[in-house]
């Protein structure tokens, strides 16, 4: 996997995955420490956004601090043949931030996951009930997080890899 990005690109990725400077010329500052020009850094970031290598560029906020007091991981048991169609419907809901199809496992019969954000747990239940009606799937569960043990952003291209 080290072949996908050059060493210099990896060094740039390491800097961009931390905080970019809040100062007038942030990309010039980043470039300076890597031996790249401001133009080169800006062009590379744009290219990575274009290719989807950078999924999002900007501020990451603490949802719980900004009014989303509750989030529920909802899990749905959907016939495999309908997973695609149902996944798209769940994903189209504005309260859903993440939606994936995943395999079932021992003691786990659910194959669609949708993360619901709302002001209260009750609202999460209401959103899930509304979605359940919409997709015609009654076999689902809401899993609330009772404690956060860890939440960090992934750091790529560091030694422990």
């Amino acid at each position: 996997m080290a072949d996908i990005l050059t060493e210099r690109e990896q060094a740039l990725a390491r800097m961009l995955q931390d905080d970019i400077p809040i100062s007038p010329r942030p990309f010039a500052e980043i470039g300076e420490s890597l031996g790249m020009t401001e133009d080169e850094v800006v062009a590379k970031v744009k290219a990575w956004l274009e290719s989807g290598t950078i999924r999002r560029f900007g501020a990451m906020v603490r949802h719980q601090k900004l009014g989303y007091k509750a989030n529920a991981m909802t899990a749905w048991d959907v016939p495999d043949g309908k997973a695609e169609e149902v996944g798209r419907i769940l994903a189209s809901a504005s309260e859903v931030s993440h939606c994936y199809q995943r395999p079932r496992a021992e003691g786990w019969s659910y194959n669609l996951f949708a993360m619901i954000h709302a002001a209260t747990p009750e609202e999460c239940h209401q959103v899930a009930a509304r979605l359940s009606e919409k997709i015609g799937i009654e076999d689902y569960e809401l899993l609330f997080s009772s404690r956060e043990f860890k939440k960090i952003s992934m750091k790529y291209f560091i030694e422990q890899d």
Partner: protein
Amino acid sequence: MDQTDKKLITYIQAGFPVCARPYAAVGEKLGLSEDEVIERLRTIKDSGEIRRMGASFDSRKLGYSSTLCAVHVPAGKLDAAIAAVNSYHNVTHNYERNHHYNMWFTVIAPSKEHINEILQEIEEQAGVGPIINLPAIKLFKIQVDLPVIDG
């Protein structure tokens, strides 16, 4: 936080301008000076409302594999399980949830084999398991820039 701060956060979550003077560009959109944007962002950043400002990479595009895992952890083994799971920089999220599978965590690593090794080590170190490994089959949505709401 006032209304201007909220507008600023909402804008900068999704539309951070990638150009030589990004904060001037943001200011132009919102009717603020470059200095004021910088000043406000520094204050918001210090308050912790903005947790990070930078790039979120797609792990797959960088050649990494990722997965969501769950495991049943009995009360007596909780501390050991938290310590084992959290010790990996490859684990970015770890939550207690209300289910028989009560610990849910994500793993990102250079390969699937690497992930399997980590899971095996966690099972051995914490004396828990089996861990269920649920890598995404299909991605329908990832959207982390929800609009700022009052509350």
